[in-house]
């Protein structure tokens, strides 16, 4: 991502320091992660100290300071999913991918994250891979589903 594009995003928010989170979110959503150079640019343009940017970008799991895998796996660990066995799904996925929540594998194939509640509790346990929902999923089904990704 080049500085021109970052500047465009910042300009869209009139360069207001209060738009910091929105600006970072937009960069993250376009680039899938936040390179150090991008953060420095944002700091300079918005006149926000790097310390605050570092705090915010580490405060939220949604931001990534390293490149993400091709397929992002989200496993819901909300209450309804929890009591319906989401932990077993997570264990299985961890075993299969060899990564823990917050991590990306060496081949940049999968990134794994847990989320607090996706708001579709009727479908619990829920796993989302690259935006595709897998509801009422059993550990073995999760394993099967992940085999389809390259």
């Amino acid at each position: 991502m080049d500085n021109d594009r970052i500047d465009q995003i910042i300009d869209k928010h009139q360069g207001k320091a209060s738009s910091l989170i929105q600006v970072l979110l937009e960069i993250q959503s376009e680039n899938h992660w936040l390179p150090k150079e991008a953060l420095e640019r944002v700091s300079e343009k918005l006149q926000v100290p790097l310390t605050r940017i570092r705090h915010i970008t580490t405060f939220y799991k949604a931001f990534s300071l390293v490149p993400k895998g091709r397929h992002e796996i989200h496993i819901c660990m909300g209450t309804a999913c929890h009591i319906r066995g989401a932990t077993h799904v997570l264990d299985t996925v961890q075993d299969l991918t060899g990564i823990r929540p917050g991590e990306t594998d060496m081949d940049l194939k999968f990134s794994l994250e847990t989320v607090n509640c996706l708001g579709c509790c009727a479908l619990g346990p829920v796993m989302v891979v690259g935006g595709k929902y897998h509801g009422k999923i059993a550990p073995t089904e999760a394993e099967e589903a992940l085999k389809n990704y390259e």
Partner: protein
Amino acid sequence: MGEILLQIDGREVKVEEGMTILEAAQSTGINIPTLCYHEKLEPYGACRICTVEVETGGRTNLVAACLYPVQENLVVMTRSEKVDKIRKMLLELMIAHAPEAGALQELAQEYGANKDRFEKEPSFCILCGLCVRYCAEVKKKNAVGFVDRGGRREVIFIPEIAAKECWNCKECFPLCPTEALQAGYLLTEALAFPSGNR
């Protein structure tokens, strides 16, 4: 600014409006322990060791003295069974992270805190934020800041800024209640300039 009459530990005290309980107590020579408070910095309210008991309108509350504004007829108890119990446990919780810190040791003795109550997890930091806030508020350099949240919260130096600003300052070092800061700083230096050519 008007004057406010309140009671601290049974003594009638007259102080300026707008003061906090802590300032009011200090102005009359009553000691309330603090760890994250510094007179040059905005009140922060994180360590909670200054918790006191207040009574207003017949109700008692536990509040942070460094933040709570004085009010007419406020009754403050800087020590009570509840207050001591809270301070004791807060010290036990913090000592698990900074077992050697002098400031904590002293207070632990006063409040009868058991230094071994919780399993040691030395991070040498109680996250009081004095360094972070001093750097931001007084020096306006923002070379040091917090990262992460919840139980993973930490203090770090931003290498690029630290390299430029910190050598000639180091004013935050003596503020640290656990002496952790120097180690953190040196670590950053090592990380930022691994070849040591600067």
